[in-house]
C-alpha cells in the first residue's frame, strides 16, 4: 500500500532513557493505527515527534512524501487530542472549536458554518456557549475531537484519549471514535496502554517496549501469532512454559520437551530447529478441560492435573490447574450444557488438552529470559480474579 506516514530510523533519548530506538514504521492513508505498550515504552514520544513537540536525535518523519522532521507544530497538517484534552478554559466550546480556523484566517461566515457542523458531528450543539469546566469528561473529549478535526488534518493524533474517563463512558467513546473515524476517513494514530482499546479500534497495531517496536500487525495477527514473548504476555493472557525442540515432524509441526509434561507437539511457524530453546505459549482459552482423558488425536496434547482455584464469572469460568509445579490458567466459556453436568470444581482431578495449532513457540534468547522473569506463568494465573490484568 501507499507510504502515507513514515518513520525512518527515528531515535530519541532523554538523558539515559532511550524513548525511541531506531524506529521504522509505515502508516497507511486512512488507517486507524495504534501504538500500544506499557508506560515508558516510548509510544507517547513517537506521537510527540509526529506532532512536532519533540525532534528526534536522528532519523526522519515523512508525511505524504514530504520530510516534516524539522517543521514546527503549527506548520504540520497534524492535530492532536491531548490526554488532558487541553481545552482553553477562557473560551466557550464554540470558541475552542473555532480556535484553529481563526488562526488560519478563515472568513467569519465559513468559521461559523464549520463550527456548527462540528458541533453537530460531536452532538454538542446545545452546549456551544458553555465554558469547558462546566462539561462532563465525555463532553470535553468530544470538544477536543471537534477542535482538532475542524482543521481537516491529514493525520489525527490521539494520546490516551480515553484514559481519564470511567469504564462505561470509555466504552461509549470507543464506539463514537470508531464512527467518527469511519465518517471523516482521515488517518488516526492512537496511543494507548490499553490493549482492549487498541484491539477493538485499530486496523493495525504496533506493540512497543523500551523504545523498540516489538511487532506490527492486525489485532488478530498480534494476538494469535505474537512474535516475541513480550507481545504474547502483553496482549491478552497466556501461559508460558520453557521447553526445547527435539524433533521436526512433518507438516510444520515440531516435538518439544517441557519439563513435567509428556512430549508436546506444537505448530512451528518460526522455523525453529532441533535443539533450540523455546517458550511454549498457550492462551488460557485455547485449553479444553475435562474429567476424562480426551480421545487421542493427531497433534492434540493432554496433561493431567488438579484444580487449584475456580472463579465463576457467568460468561466464563476461570480455572487454575496445578500440573507438577505449574499453575496453568484455563478459561472455559459458558455453554448451555454447563448446568447439566456436575461442574468441575476445586480439587478435582482433570485433564487439560490443546491442539498443537493453538499454541506457539517463541525462541528463547538471553534477553528474552529477562522478559520472562517479568511475566512468569504465575502472573497470568493470579487466582484473585485479576487474571485479565496486564503484567
Amino acid at each position: 500500500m501507499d507510504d502515507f506516514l513514515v518513520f525512518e530510523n527515528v531515535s530519541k533519548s532523554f538523558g539515559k532513557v532511550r524513548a525511541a530506538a531506531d524506529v521504522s514504521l509505515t502508516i497507511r492513508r486512512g488507517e486507524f493505527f495504534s501504538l500500544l505498550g506499557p508506560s515508558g515504552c516510548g509510544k507517547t514520544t513517537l506521537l510527540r515527534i509526529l506532532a512536532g513537540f519533540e525532534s528526534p536525535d536522528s532519523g526522519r518523519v515523512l508525511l505524504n512524501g514530504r520530510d516534516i522532521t524539522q517543521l514546527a507544530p503549527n506548520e504540520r497538517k497534524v492535530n492532536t487530542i491531548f490526554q488532558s484534552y487541553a481545552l482553553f478554559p477562557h473560551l466557550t466550546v464554540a470558541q475552542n472549536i473555532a480556535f484553529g480556523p481563526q488562526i488560519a484566517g478563515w472568513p467569519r461566515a465559513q468559521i461559523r458554518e464549520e463550527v456548527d457542523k462540528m458541533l453537530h458531528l460531536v452532538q454538542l450543539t446545545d452546549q456551544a456557549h458553555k465554558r469547558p469546566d462546566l462539561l462532563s469528561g465525555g463532553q470535553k473529549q468530544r470538544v477536543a475531537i471537534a477542535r482538532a478535526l475542524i482543521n481537516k488534518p491529514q493525520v489525527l493524533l490521539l494520546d490516551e484519549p480515553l484514559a481519564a474517563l470511567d469504564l462505561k463512558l470509555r466504552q461509549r467513546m470507543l464506539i463514537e471514535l470508531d464512527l467518527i473515524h469511519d465518517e471523516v476517513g482521515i488517518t488516526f494514530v492512537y496511543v494507548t496502554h490499553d490493549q482492549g482499546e487498541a484491539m477493538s479500534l485499530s486496523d493495525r497495531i504496533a506493540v512497543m517496549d523500551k523504545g523498540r517496536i516489538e511487532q506490527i500487525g492486525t489485532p488478530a495477527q498480534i494476538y494469535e501469532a505474537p512474535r516475541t514473548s513480550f507481545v504474547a504476555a502483553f496482549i491478552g493472557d497466556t501461559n508460558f512454559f520453557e521447553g526445547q525442540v527435539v524433533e521436526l515432524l512433518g507438516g510444520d509441526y515440531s516435538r518439544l520437551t517441557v519439563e513435567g509434561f509428556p512430549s508436546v507437539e506444537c505448530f512451528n511457524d518460526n522455523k525453529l530447529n532441533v535443539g533450540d530453546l523455546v517458550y511454549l505459549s498457550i492462551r488460557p482459552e485455547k485449553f479444553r478441560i475435562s474429567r476424562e482423558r480426551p480421545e487421542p488425536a493427531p497433534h492434540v496434547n493432554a496433561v493431567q492435573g488438579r484444580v487449584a482455584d475456580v472463579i465463576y464469572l457467568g460468561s466464563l469460568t476461570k480455572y487454575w490447574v496445578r500440573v507438577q509445579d505449574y499453575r496453568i490458567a484455563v478459561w472455559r466459556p459458558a455453554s448451555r450444557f454447563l448446568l447439566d453436568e456436575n461442574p468441575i470444581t476445586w480439587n478435582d482431578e482433570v485433564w487439560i488438552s490443546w491442539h498443537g495449532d493453538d499454541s506457539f513457540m517463541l525462541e528463547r534468547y538471553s534477553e528474552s529470559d529477562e522478559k520472562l522473569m517479568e511475566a512468569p506463568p504465575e502472573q497470568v494465573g493470579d487466582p484473585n480474579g485479576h487474571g485479565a490484568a496486564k503484567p
Partner: protein
Amino acid sequence: MTPARRARWTEALVTTPSLAWLLVFFVVPTVIIFAITFKPVDLYGGIGKGWTLDTLKSLFNPNYPAIVWRTVWLSLATTAVCLILAVPCGYYVARSSDRWRQMLLLLIILPFWTSFLVRVFAWKVLLHPEGPLKHALAAVGLIGPDTLLLYNEKAILLVMVYTFLPFAILPIYAAAEKFDFRLLEAARDLGARPLRAFWSVFVPGIRRGLLTAVLVVFIPALGSYVIPDIVGGPNSEMIGNKIAQRTFSDRNLPHASGLSAFLTLGVLLPLLLVLALQRKKGEEAPSMQEVS
C-alpha cells in the same frame, strides 16, 4: 443553640478582629480626613472650629490639573512597563526547574532586604550628573554632556518601575505557576505561532494575576511621593508631593486632607468599577492570596 446559629456566632467571632482593625485603622481615619477637608485652618497650623467650604474651593488651583495629569500618566506608564516586563519574567520563572526557580524568586525578593529609601538614594547616586552612569553613557556618546538623567519625569518613571516591578512579577508568577502549559502545546498544535499562542492562551490564562499586578502597582504609584521627591525635579511634582508640602511646609492640614480625599476617591472609584465588572462576570475578586 442550633448548629446554624453556632456557625454564625463562630463566623462573627472570627471576623470581628479584622473588621474592627479595618474600622479603626482604615474607615475612621478616612472619614476623619474627609471631614477635615471641611474645617478651617487656625493661625498656628492646626484645625480650627466650625465648618467651611473654603478648602474645597481652593482645590481648584490652576496648578493642579498639570500635577494630576502627571501623576496619572506616570502611574499608568509605570503600570504598563511593569506588566510588559513582569509577564515574560513570570512565565520564565514558572517554567524554570524547581531549584532554579527558588533562586530566581529569592533574587526578586532580595531588594526588599534593603531599605526602600536607601535604594532610591542609590539611584540618585547612579543617575547623578557627576555619577558613573552619566559619565559612562556620555563617554560612549549615547547622551550629550548636558543631558540630565536625574531630576525629571523619566527618572521618576525609571525608579518607580524599579520599585514596583517585584510587586508585579509575584502575582503574575503565582498565576503562571498554576497555568497548564500543555495549553500552549495545544495552541501550537492548532496552528498558532509561539507568540500568538503566548498572547491568546497564556495571557488570558493569567488574567487574574495581571489584574492583581495592575492594582498593586497602579494604586501605590498614584500615591508615591518619596520617589518624585528624591529623583524628581521642581517641575515633576506628583500629588503625593503636594500633600506632603501642604502638611509639612504650609501647615494647611485641611488642604492636604482635601487632596488626600481626592486621591482616595480617584483610586477607589476605578477599583470599585473593576470589582463590579468582575462580579458581573461571575469571577472572584482578585486577591493577594494569589501571591502567597
